[in-house]
């Protein structure tokens, strides 16, 4: 049996697969961030908190309304999306003319408020959310045991990522959106309601975070701190991919997941730093990010 740097191939394949699973979470979350930044020029620090809200909505639905996983998969993103639209209409929309920093401060504040409120209500240990019956168990792939649920997460998030990319880069609606970011006044002159479109975009972006929250609920604890833990990595992913680049967010998310998986085999202690090391290197060599364009 051959081995690579002292690691048997079974272990390596297993870790790569796990990296892909984590990477698809990163991709899904950074996709929402990239859409929002690309279209609204807002650095959405509330993204992690809204991901957490998505998971909590799923848990609340299950606990108090008896709505299961599949229902939550539809309802939770809608709830989070509506919450996002409300936030955009009442607060964020007033800041577009100001410096980026104001949007950042506002969303950061919102994140703290949301997390504080949930922490106050539900404590920090989190709540259990079971894996849906249809996805329990797993497959023995020979080199590792792959839980069915994780396989589902990869398939679901890749489908959504591709769908979003397609909608924005290849459809007419996407073309309007991209045009509206370039020159809102002109697009409005063509009879398109730009403010509504912007609200919907923000709603869609955060709904993606809510969806990621539902997907994450059965794997991690549904806890008020779950967003904070993830958001920093996701920001690094967006920066590496290039702020606002949709394809960049998806590819980088998956790529960094794989890289992190490898780090966990060869030097586990560094597994939560490796992403930031890559970020530093990319920023030094290509400040706009791997897929970003200089503005």
């Amino acid at each position, binding site marked *: 049996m051959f081995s690579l740097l002292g690691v048997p191939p079974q*272990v390596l394949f*297993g870790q790569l697969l796990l990296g892909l699973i984590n990477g698809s979470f990163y991709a899904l979350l950074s996709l929402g961030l990239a859409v929002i930044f690309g279209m609204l020029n807002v650095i959405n620090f509330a993204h992690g908190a809204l991901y957490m809200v998505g998971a909590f909505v799923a848990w609340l639905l299950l606990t108090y309304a008896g709505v299961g996983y599949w229902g939550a998969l539809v309802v939770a993103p809608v709830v989070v999306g509506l919450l996002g639209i409300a936030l955009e209409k009442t607060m964020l929309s007033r800041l577009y003319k100001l410096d980026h920093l104001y949007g950042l401060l506002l969303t950061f504040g919102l994140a703290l408020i949301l997390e504080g409120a949930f922490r106050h209500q539900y404590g920090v240990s989190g709540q*259990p959310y079971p894996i849906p019956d249809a996805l329990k168990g797993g497959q023995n792939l020979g080199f590792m045991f792959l839980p069915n649920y994780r396989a589902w997460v990869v398939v679901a998030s890749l489908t959504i990522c591709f769908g979003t990319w397609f909608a924005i880069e290849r459809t007419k609606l996407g073309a309007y959106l991209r045009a509206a970011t370039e020159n809102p006044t002109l697009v409005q002159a063509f009879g398109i309601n730009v403010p509504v479109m912007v609200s919907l975009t923000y709603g869609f972006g955060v709904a993606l975070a809510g969806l990621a929250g539902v997907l994450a609920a059965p794997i991690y*604890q549904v806890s008020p701190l779950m967003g904070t833990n993830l958001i920093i990595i996701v920001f690094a992913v967006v920066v590496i991919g290039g702020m606002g680049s949709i394809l960049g967010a998806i590819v980088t998310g998956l790529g960094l997941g794989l890289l992190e998986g490898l780090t966990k085999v060869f030097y*586990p202690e560094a*597994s939560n730093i490796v992403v930031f090391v890559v970020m530093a290197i990319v920023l030094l060599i290509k400040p706009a990010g791997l897929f970003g364009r200089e503005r």
Partner: protein
Amino acid sequence: MRTLLLAGTALLTLAGTAVPAFAQVSDNVIRIGVLNDRSGIYADLAGEGSAIAARMAAEEFGNKVAGAPVEIVVADHQNKADIAASKAREWVDTGGVDAIADVPNSAAALAVQGITKDKKRIFLMSGPGATALSGAQCSPYGFQWTYDNYAMAAGTGRALYEQGKKKWFFVTADYAFGQSLEEETTKMVKSLGGTIIGSVRHPLGTADFSSFLLQAQGSGADVIGLANAGGDTVNAVKQAAEFGITQSGQSLAGLLMFISDVNALGLQSAQGLMLTTGFYWDMDDQTREWSKAFEAKAGKKPTMVQAGVYSAVKHYLKAVEAAKTDDADKVSAKMRELPVEDMFAKKGRIAANGRMFHDMYLAQVKTPAESKGAWDYYKIVKTIPADTAFMDPKQSGCSLVK
């Protein structure tokens, strides 16, 4: 400071002025500061619950000992040693605090231990696990009450060994506490004749454990020892179930688990886990009655840390009452002299190194079918007598042990 106080008191007495009954209590108030994590990962196992427990202890004395009112103050150390140290210093220097209680997070507790030792204040540790606190870093005023890493390792390590599980693999949180827990358990397993197959260190606050669990699964170990705490343990246990680790015959050992963790996990994921605990609410009438009163105030059953805060504060107040002063030397001598007897500790005693010896319990988490309802989580498998539960003070490395 103390001599000045004594001299002052003596002077007053000599002068024949009306001396109030509580003349020996500095600034006429017994102030106890509950310092812990109130917002981060340890907020559920300690947090406000510990403050409630301390207040419950004070209420049993009518909020008055040795003629002086008892006041409980609280602060959040945010799991940062520097914040813990500056808060402790502020409390002692300007806040008139006589004793500091709880302080989970060993790094924060070590910082506070240094301050309370220098400034002669009582330190009632319920939250921290590092054995150094009653070892190399011991203090004449520091009391480690509820558990420590040695007790956790000895309890769970030995129990699993006796079940024939001899090969261990550690999944360890990569910081002082996790490493110390791994080290204590390794010593215990090796002394019994078991072997350590390997270990993997993960960063604190890891969400995804699949990679580490896969390595543990592939190692062929009988037991996967989780040398971590709080959210890390919860995520690791949950994902171990997902990857079919327990079904395939390997055992998981949560080396430090609290009932709040089990509650967060749910019995479906936590069932069958072996753990060592200093307290369980459903042991006898006394624990049930106290825990019910606690639940009425806190909305949940107490963890061992919270129950330990109650016991430690109660014992402290008892000692102040008996010594009729809040002078740290006299109170700490009294605390060592009096037996610890309450719903938490039966026939507890304090050793020279500040370690409070009491029975520990080996528990197994119930299956959903066995559980009769909310918080009915543990089967107490056996009682670990105080003498074997904790490290022999002579081996602790504490300079106070003669």
